[in-house]
């Protein structure tokens, strides 16, 4: 009997124990090493569609772009729209269109970095495809994952999409200016997040009004070191 599955036929059974995402993870490790050598802070920005990732990045570029160089890798299934918005805000951007794909992977990011050539000591935001499921699975080589959730999405997203929220180093709670209009209960949200990820920093803010952005910038400065 073989040790793998209990079958009787061992002759033609080849034990492998190979990780399916092994190739992606190897590429991600290369990206990470390349970025860390240059002291570049790479942030994988994840959320559902419409939570305000691009608005947050536009605002961040406008407020911090003069003090720290920022570049952006934009992932969407289609269009150059987001890259255009980022460029209009004053940063260089590479748009990746994943077509039918629902996430970015490490090889796409490697190609984008080659094109982008971010300078040492800079920040690279990797805006992932808006999706709370698949992108959680793929390491891109980032230093940290920032998950953006907005008050319009309700309080229980973390327990509904545990994989995504489990991997968050920082949780940006966006659109706080709509808290009253939506009846959003922040303590219920924090409880839901704590159930899957007790470590994540929560940064409530409004990328539109600017409320709470200071704490996000402080966090970025700290993470850059």
């Amino acid at each position, binding site marked *: 009997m073989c040790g*793998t*599955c209990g079958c009787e036929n061992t002759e*033609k059974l*080849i*034990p492998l124990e190979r990780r*399916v995402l092994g*190739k992606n993870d190897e590429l991600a490790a290369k990206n990470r090493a390349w970025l860390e050598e240059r002291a570049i802070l790479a942030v994988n920005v994840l959320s559902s569609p419409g939570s305000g990732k691009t608005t947050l990045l536009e605002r961040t570029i406008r407020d911090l772009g003069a003090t720290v160089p920022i570049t952006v890798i934009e992932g969407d299934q289609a269009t150059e729209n987001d890259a255009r918005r980022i460029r209009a805000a004053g940063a260089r951007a590479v748009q990746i269109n994943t077509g039918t794909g629902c996430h970015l992977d490490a090889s796409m990011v490697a190609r984008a970095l080659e094109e982008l050539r971010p300078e040492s000591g800079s920040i690279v935001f990797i805006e992932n495809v808006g999706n709370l499921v*698949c992108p959680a699975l793929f390491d891109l080589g980032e230093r940290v994952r920032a998950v953006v959730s907005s008050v319009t999405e309700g309080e229980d997203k973390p327990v509904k999409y545990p994989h995504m929220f489990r991997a968050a180093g920082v949780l940006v709670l966006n659109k706080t200016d709509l808290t009253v209009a939506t009846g959003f209960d922040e303590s219920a949200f924090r409880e839901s997040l704590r159930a899957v990820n007790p470590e994540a920093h929560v940064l409530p803010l409004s990328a539109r009004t600017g409320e709470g952005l200071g704490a996000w910038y402080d966090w970025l400065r700290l993470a850059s070191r």
Partner: protein
Amino acid sequence: MHELGLISEVLAIVEEESKGAPVKRIVLEVGPLACVLEDALRFAFELAREGTVAEAAELEIVRGDGATGDDELRVRALELV
């Protein structure tokens, strides 16, 4: 949605390891938090295996116990024809 991409990775590993010999069975371990649907994996496998060494292979999915990582997805073994 991403299951087709994962199955393509599985088939690439299978092609490489079988060295072109036809495969009878693939044992795939799916961890408890691997974020994949078994039905979707099987559906993707049906689509993707055509014309590969795994064309007539059986896909055996074993639920991992999380010992090697909760989100683990690995090809544990191959059985050749």
